[in-house]
């Protein structure tokens, strides 16, 4: 019986092969097919990575919700939902074109608005590339909501989201990354290294966050008249930790995905990303242990993020051992930065400026210092130039924008609204209706 089955199968396979073999493969058609398969793999990897980076929005939402008070949870979630949603639309309309459009000057793009590069019968790569880029733009935008938490007017924040995804982020992005598509940037032309965006994404977000926190002022009750600082503890450390783990996972799309190519280089990028995060978490924990007497959870979590931000620039051009060092420095840096900001009375409820701004700068510098091919004064010089250019563009523009919003529709809620909680005053709701959500810390 078995023999018959084998004979029939053999006949069937031969018949199918004969029929399918009408186009016998040639060397040229094989080559085209191979290129197509690689093309398809590139699409696949880029879009999977884009989905991972999108998931970082959940990470940010959970970190920010966990590190702030329960009475403001709905507001934080709304801000996170909206800075992604509004950012997406604005980036589709204007941002992408400014960042990646044809750029005669090297300072901003002038084509590709409303995804005009896409035609239904044309190359859909622009769509995959846009998808990957929009989640990056949204990452920069959502960094700011953490620093401005618990006292920012919802409408003011939405206006800001439009500003950051429509102007601030794409302009600087065009300087560093424009040539990845149709544009070209003056900064990348000098050899600026920022593979996945320590500066382009994280420092832009971090400095905008700093501007916002400064214009807003601190939360009521955070800094007392006698100069002392009162902690305002977050309401849910498990959510905060969940957020950090989600961000760590998403970063495996953020960094390796920036190749937008499915090739072997993503392996080292994965490893560098993980090592830097781990080193950052450990060193932040150790630093907090020395400084405060016990290993502190929120600083350790911030440390992991700091390591991730710091490796983002150099993830493709430093060795794994260097990644560990970069992460270690980031972990120490973030703790001291958080303490410094409190000393100068800039209230940053989740440490966004310290994680993203400060370590974005460190990571960019580190990408020059630890460059696998060796470093030179020139390389480091360009890195420093990029770091400075980012700050000098982002911070003043964001400051002006926040001041404008403040003068027109108002940026900060009233003291009564702040005391009552934004969930009720801005959204008429309660994130935890089954529980008593009243904090009796000052306000």
């Amino acid at each position, binding site marked *: 019986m078995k023999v018959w089955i084998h004979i029939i199968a053999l006949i069937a396979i031969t018949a199918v092969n004969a029929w399918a073999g009408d186009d016998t493969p040639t060397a040229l058609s094989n080559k085209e097919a191979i290129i197509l398969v690689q093309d398809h793999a590139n699409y696949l990897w880029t879009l999977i990575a884009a989905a991972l980076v999108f998931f970082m929005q959940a990470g940010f939402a959970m970190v920010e919700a966990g590190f702030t008070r329960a009475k403001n949870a709905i507001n934080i979630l709304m801000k996170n939902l909206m800075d992604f949603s509004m950012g997406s639309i604005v980036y589709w309309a204007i941002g992408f074109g400014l960042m990646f459009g044809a750029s005669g000057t090297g300072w901003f793009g002038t084509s590709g608005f409303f995804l005009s590069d896409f035609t239904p019968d044309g190359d859909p790569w622009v769509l995959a590339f846009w998808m990957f880029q929009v989640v990056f733009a949204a990452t920069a935008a959502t960094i700011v909501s953490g620093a401005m938490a618990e006292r920012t007017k919802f409408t003011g924040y939405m206006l800001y989201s439009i500003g950051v995804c429509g102007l601030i982020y794409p302009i600087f992005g065009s300087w560093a990354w424009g040539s990845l598509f149709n544009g070209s940037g003056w900064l990348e032309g000098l050899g600026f290294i920022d593979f996945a965006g320590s500066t382009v994404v994280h420092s832009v977000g971090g400095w905008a966050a700093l501007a916002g926190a400064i214009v807003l002022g601190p939360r009521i*009750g955070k800094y007392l008249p006698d100069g002392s600082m009162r902690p305002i503890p977050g309401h849910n450390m498990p959510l905060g930790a969940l957020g950090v783990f989600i961000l760590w996972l998403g970063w495996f799309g953020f960094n390796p995905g920036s190749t937008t190519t499915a090739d072997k280089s993503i392996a080292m990028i994965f490893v560098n990303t993980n090592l830097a995060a781990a080193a950052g978490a450990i060193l932040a924990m150790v630093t907090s242990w020395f400084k405060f007497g016990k290993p502190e959870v929120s600083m350790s979590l911030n440390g992991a993020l700091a390591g991730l931000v710091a490796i983002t620039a150099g993830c493709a051009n430093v060795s794994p051992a260097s990644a560990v060092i970069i992460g270690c420095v980031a972990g120490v840096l973030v703790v001291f930065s958080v303490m410094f900001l409190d000393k100068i009375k800039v209230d940053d409820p989740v440490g966004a400026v310290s994680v993203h701004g400060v370590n974005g700068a460190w990571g960019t510098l580190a990408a020059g210092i630890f460059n696998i091919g060796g470093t030179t004064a020139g390389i480091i010089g360009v890195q420093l130039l990029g770091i400075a250019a980012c700050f000098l563009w982002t911070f003043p523009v964001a400051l002006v924008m926040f001041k404008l919003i403040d003068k027109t529709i108002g940026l900060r809620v009233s003291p009564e609204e702040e*005391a009552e909680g934004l969930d*009720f005053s801005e959204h*008429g*709701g*309660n994130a935890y*209706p089954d529980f*008593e*959500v*009243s*904090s*009796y*810390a*000052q*306000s």
Partner: protein
Amino acid sequence: MRKIEAVIKPFKLDDVKDALNKIGVKGMTISEVKGFGRQKGHKETYRGAEYQVDFVPKIKIDLVVDAAMSDQVVATIKESASSGKIGDGKIFVMPVGEAVRIRTGESGREAI
């Protein structure tokens, strides 16, 4: 001995605690409560439906003090817990029959 119960606005707790500390009251018990008097609650919305939340979060402070101190404590609480706005709360004073410190067994004035 007198027991003093004060229902106050939550964000006033630290002010009251500090003020009481200054006049020599070193201990107290607090509970998170809800209540309303003349202060009305507010309306909340969920998925298109409105609902009234009548009870407002408050903090209740329980203290037992020497009868001689009682008036001063009441005045201190009244001053430090006041925001001038509706919903500031109320203070009640009642006599205490006995007080005992669990660790040492002391009773009466030594216990408070």
